[in-house]
């Protein structure tokens, strides 16, 4: 967050300051405006460091916001607007990467890691004689009781 704002600020020093989503940009129709906001939050400001066009102060983000609204007013669906930007800038403009050949690893990794981790855990637990734990020995009971006591209360 720090860095992208430094960069945004560096841009500000060169150009007149603009605010993210200026009132003058907003559509009079609240439903359409809400849709425009939603679309804007899915698109990256192509000049900035990891910022959506919705929150960016860069001028190109302003232009993109205006264009998003223009297309929505013209009757495009949210997905059509996003697709248009995608056709112009490619993967770079999408904050949520598409599920495609170049992002399979990205999207599948969390689930695979979780399954893999769970599998390893199960293996490790099975390695140990826990399937049918032997009844506690007297000394073990005493040890656990002592542990429990310090745990629970004095």
């Amino acid at each position, binding site marked *: 967050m*720090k860095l992208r704002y*430094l960069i945004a600020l560096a841009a500000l020093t060169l150009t007149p300051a603009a605010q993210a989503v200026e009132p003058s940009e907003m559509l009079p129709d609240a439903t359409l405006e809400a849709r425009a906001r939603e679309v804007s939050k899915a698109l990256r400001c192509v000049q900035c460091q990891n910022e959506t066009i919705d929150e960016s102060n860069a001028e190109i983000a302003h232009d993109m916001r205006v264009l998003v609204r223009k297309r929505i007013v013209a009757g495009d669906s949210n997905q059509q607007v996003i697709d248009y930007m995608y056709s112009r800038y490619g993967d770079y403009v999408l904050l949520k990467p598409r599920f495609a050949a170049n992002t399979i690893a*990205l999207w599948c990794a*969390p689930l695979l890691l979780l399954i893999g981790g769970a599998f390893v855990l199960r293996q490790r637990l099975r390695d*140990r004689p826990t399937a049918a*734990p032997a009844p506690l020995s007297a000394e073990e009971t005493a040890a656990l009781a*002592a542990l429990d006591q310090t745990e629970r*209360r*004095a």
Partner: protein
Amino acid sequence: MITELGHFALALALIVALIQATVPMIGAQKNDPALMAIARPAALAQFGLIGFSFAALIHAFVTNDFSVVGAYENSHTAQPLFYKIAGAWGNHEGSMVLWITILALFGASVAVFGENLPPALRARALSVQAMITVGFIAFILFTSNPFLRLVPAPLEGVGLNPLLQHPGMAIHPPMLYSGYVGFSMAFSFAIAALIEGRVDAAWARWVRPWTLAAWVLLTCGIGLGSWWAYTILGWGGWWAWDPVENASFIPWLTGTALLHSAIVVEKREALKSWTILLAIITFSLSLLGTFLVRSGILTSVHAFASDPTRGVFVLALLSVAIGGSLILYAVRAPTLEGGGVFAPISREGGLLLNNLFLSTAAATVLLGTLYPLIAEALDLGKLTVGPPYFNGVFVPLMVPLVIVAGIGPFLAWKRGDLLAARARLGVAGAGTIFVIIVSAALSHNDWQALAAAGGLGLSTWLALASICEWIDRVHPLRSGALARIRHLPRAAHGMTLAHLGFAIVIAGATASTAWKEEHNQIQAAGSTVTVAGYTLRFEGATDVPGPNYSAKEGRFVVLKGDDEIGVLTPQRREYIQPRQVGTSPAIMTVALGDIYAVLGDPDGDKGFATRLYFQPLVPWLWLGVLLMAAGGLCSLSDRRLRVGAPRRTTRAATNAAAQPAE
């Protein structure tokens, strides 16, 4: 002159660190007490030298010595003293010096307070610490010299970036680095234990206080960073999954896992090699975070390229440190296994699940953060991985984690009874269902309902379960409750507090995301906007001078019904040096959240663009973070973790007889 001395001290510290990195290690291998004994004075000398060097750097900033490049670029005579000092670490070079100063401080404290450590373990750990120091000082001296001079010296400095002139940002780096460095202690102990081939409950008890301290500091550091973003950046967000944020969040996730798995090592002598691995990984990720952010590899590959020496150096350094320790791990860790057996449903089992979800979450955030870089290197195109990805994968991983965090503490060690736990969780379950229904009813659309019900339900579950568990232990209403509270280990109180804090963070995060209210408009003086039932009357804007900026200050009167309950004065600042425009939002905390006002550009004679938000439960985020940190501190004060508590010799004697009963 002082500057040159500081530079010289740093070079001397490198030599001392080289000695400390080698001699005690050889001593420990040969079992030579004289050689091992060198570690302690060396650690103290190192701290003295690096401390002096850091002081010399701050001196240059405080005395406006603009012949020092760092001071010229990050300080200004008009800058308040506090920010002159903070400016010393508000840049790459200075922050590196701060890093090694904290590292040396921690090393020195092991030397001073580590009397009860076995000499060989202490010597090895300090030696590993020194190796880290060697790498860092070399990096500073050869690629990032903070004492570089400018000839001729400019009369005035450029000034610290105005956004960084904020109390949160001034103490954020020291906090964060203390956290990172704290994990270096766990790392050094892990490496020392791998070399010794011995990990036991006593080892875990030496490592846990450092890990806890590091975790508390990192938690606060991340919280401060988030608070800073919220109060200064002016769009009301507190977390954006930015690479810079992720860089500190990933080690926090693995550090949290480490904290939990170390408990299992301590209590049950199980999960040893996993805990060692977590210690290595957590510090490796801290290193990665520090370097990748500061050298810009992560955020913009361009900065990486702008100084290839730095990039190559960073890569070499990380390869040696991380690669070396993982080779050692691969070779030695298989000998560490064994320890207490346990059934899947048990306290250990719960903690293992915690580790599974936290590690997967950490790996996922790491992958998402690095993926653009990976894709580019593998010619998969230039792409962006933004918040929708992180929210989409991170949140589902947190759901089971929170559920388990509620149940786990009810399970006994070794073999738990899920049915008994379920009976005691009835209240928490009922409360959760109630909150889910209420939050769904309060929402305006499906998405809101799902997010709010899910998040607040989880929060309630964890909070109630934690409280129930605590009540179960101390029975506050029966006689003798105070004694029971006093006798319950501090670590147990700490857990309750930290889990409660986590629950509150979840509630804050959920409510502020699902129910945030935003109003964007042009306002003329006298016009009003209603925000979450409060009426905000704009009374125009006036010019206000500041120490190093001039500002337009808007004035909003906040009305509840007809009663005036406060005034908000957001500013739009134009900084004189460096020339930048910044916003300074005004925030007023009311019953269920913050009213957040931002003043925008004037729009001719029609008035000003204003953005007004209602941010539900955002203060809970900060409260929750504080509670988590308080929980960590409470745990840290546990007598078992105090200096002098664990002694391996006594443990060994009782080892065969019983599980270490503290």
